[in-house]
């Protein structure tokens, strides 16, 4: 299958510092792709190059099999991290304007805007000006502006900031629905939980370099089942097991334990039984993405 986005050996410099250096990436069509990395890693620069706001100094980018140009522009929906809307325009007006800029007929844009506003619970605000809306509402309008023209490639930079859990779930459902209809989604976020729930593959950037990429499940598997999650009541001293445990994090009566490589997780259960600690739940699992992230990034810093 054709890649939705193909980035080949792309470098972007700003005043002699490399924001992105020889990055190569392929993003499969119809998947959710997570673009991750600490602040200043080059995520926004990469996204800006895909939407043709910035031009790479070296390398080439293709979107849906075509080199970047006026035609690819209309196939992309973009929700930037730094975003806003004209304050004195009405919601429906601004949605129609932004969709028309992507080549959609204005009458059709008006119809779709009505339907989507209905779905996101903003139908009665359609004729209100943007400056009368709460931040969360503006956020939803911005999200709609990115999807109204039914882009084949949807780029979302931190789409959940400012949304309450109910609205975040609403947006998430729409995203998954679009993916099921064949839309490719690039998701850039610091919320690792969302990435784990939604992304098929990821790429981790650090200081402009790719330090990890691939299928999310495969990445986690490569780290092996080296984590134990245990729910218990009693003294946590039983976890004092040098030679088996590398680190442990406690959340009340839950512990997330990272095992040393080659250690037998059964030793933990054994210790619990010996020290008469009640175990309610015992789970052997892959490491959370959060840990992989921190692990990789601090290794990159070293």
């Amino acid at each position: 299958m054709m890649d939705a986005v193909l980035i080949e050996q792309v470098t972007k410099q700003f005043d002699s510092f490399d924001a992105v250096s020889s990055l190569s990436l392929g993003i499969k069509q119809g998947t959710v792709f997570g673009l991750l990395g600490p602040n200043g890693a080059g995520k926004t620069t990469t996204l800006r190059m895909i939407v043709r706001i910035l031009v790479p100094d070296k390398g080439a980018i293709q979107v849906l099999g075509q080199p970047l140009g006026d035609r690819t522009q209309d196939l992309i929906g973009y929700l930037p991290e730094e975003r806003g809307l004209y304050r004195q325009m009405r919601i429906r007006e601004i949605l129609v304007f932004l969709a028309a800029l992507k080549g959609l007929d204005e009458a059709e844009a008006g119809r779709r805007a009505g339907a989507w506003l209905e779905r996101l619970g903003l139908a009665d605000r359609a004729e209100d000006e943007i400056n009368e809306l709460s931040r969360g509402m503006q956020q939803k309008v911005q999200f709609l502006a990115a999807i109204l023209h039914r882009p084949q490639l949807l780029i979302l930079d931190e789409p959940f900031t400012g949304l309450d859990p109910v609205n975040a779930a609403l947006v998430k459902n729409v995203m998954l629905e679009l993916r099921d209809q064949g839309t490719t989604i690039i998701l850039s976020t610091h919320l690792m939980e969302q990435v784990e729930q939604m992304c098929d593959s990821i790429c981790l950037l650090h200081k402009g370099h790719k330090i990890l990429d691939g299928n999310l499940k495969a990445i986690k598997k490569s780290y092996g089942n080296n984590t134990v999650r245990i729910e218990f009541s009693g003294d946590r001293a039983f976890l004092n097991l040098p030679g088996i445990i590398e680190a442990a994090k406690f959340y009340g009566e839950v512990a997330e334990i990272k095992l040393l490589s080659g250690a037998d997780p059964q030793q933990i259960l054994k210790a619990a039984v010996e020290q008469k600690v009640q175990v309610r739940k015992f789970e052997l699992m892959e490491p959370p993405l959060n840990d992989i992230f921190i692990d990789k990034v601090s290794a990159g810093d070293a």
Partner: protein
Amino acid sequence: MHKIWLVFKREYITRVRTKAFIFGTIALPLLALVILTVSVFLSGTSSAYTVRLAILDEAGGLAGTVKKTLLANAANKDQPDVQVIETLEQPSPEQKAHLLSQIESGDIEAFLVLPKGLIAGKVPAELHARNFRAMTLLGPVQRAVSVALITRRLTQEGKQAGDMKNVFELAHVQLVNVMSGKEENDSGDDTFIVAIAAGMLLYMTLIIYGMSTMRSVMEEKSTRIVEILVSSIKPFDLLTGKIASVGAVALTQYLIWGITLGAIMSFGSRFARLLRPGAAAPAFHIPPVLLIYLVVFFLAGYFLYASLYAAAGAIVSTDEEARQAQMPLTLLIMGSFLLFNIVLNDPNSTLSVVLSVTPFLSPILMTLRVAIVPPPFWQIALAIGLSIAATFVVIRISARIYRVGILMHGKRPSLKELRRWLRYT
């Protein structure tokens, strides 16, 4: 092209429905209407105004001729009507004091004193007047007193004034205004006022709409919607649509002003009679060709300045920085206004010609020349051509600064950084 149109349309619609636009558009015709009404009520017209005059003839034997000459010339439209209330030969000091109090109370407007030494030419006659209107009588009075004096002196020489009637036939000098090679009977004041007004209008609208473009760029930058926009449309197209749109808004305003002012002028006298029967509206003669050049030079100047203002708007992030960045541009426009006098004094000197074809200065200065003494067409064409050429250069530079600037936040770039922006791809 379609996307430029969309940007144009959005900007235009959201702009013409703002309170600022609506207010500005109705304010000027309203002001004209107010001025018309006030002028009708305050001054009336020259023909409706009568100066009541008393003549104190201390020299003796002069008052009769003065009165006769004054009344004979009363048909002349340049002078107010005169009514000679009384003539006193050899007045007493009490009579003089009485006249002064009459002026105070407004029973008469002026009195003329013909002192004893007048015939010998030792002292001047005195016209005591209460207001400006009565002072316009100075010319006619001077003429009448001269006639009386000459008559008296001739009589003393033993000649009969009646025999030499044509000696007193004074020459009339009429002001003739030379416009585009043809001669028109017109008072020169009109042309002057129209020229100044056209210059002022250009000056104000260039600044207002230039800053309007700047604010529009700043709004898109500060709300960050610009990042969404430039992911859909090229920055150059966005800039083009925006500048064209603000220009169209300005033209709309010009059109509405033109139509309403035209209506006020053509219905002005009817309106004036409605307010006060017998009154006439002050009339200005504005040559249509000037209106056309006004629009042409507004556009020439606007595109040049607006692209600079847009670049300035893209550089800055805060209102404070915006005030600093717009300063040099406003000064540039003000500069043309300061050179106004040079052109006004000698519109056809080499300096005036050079200044009035220089881009940035040409909009205001060439319009001024067109209003006073129309320059040869090649000079006008040269001014327009140079302005368009300059616009092409400036808009290219501005677009590069704009493209980088709209995505930059934080501190204002130095000139060195700006030069680097020009090289970014």
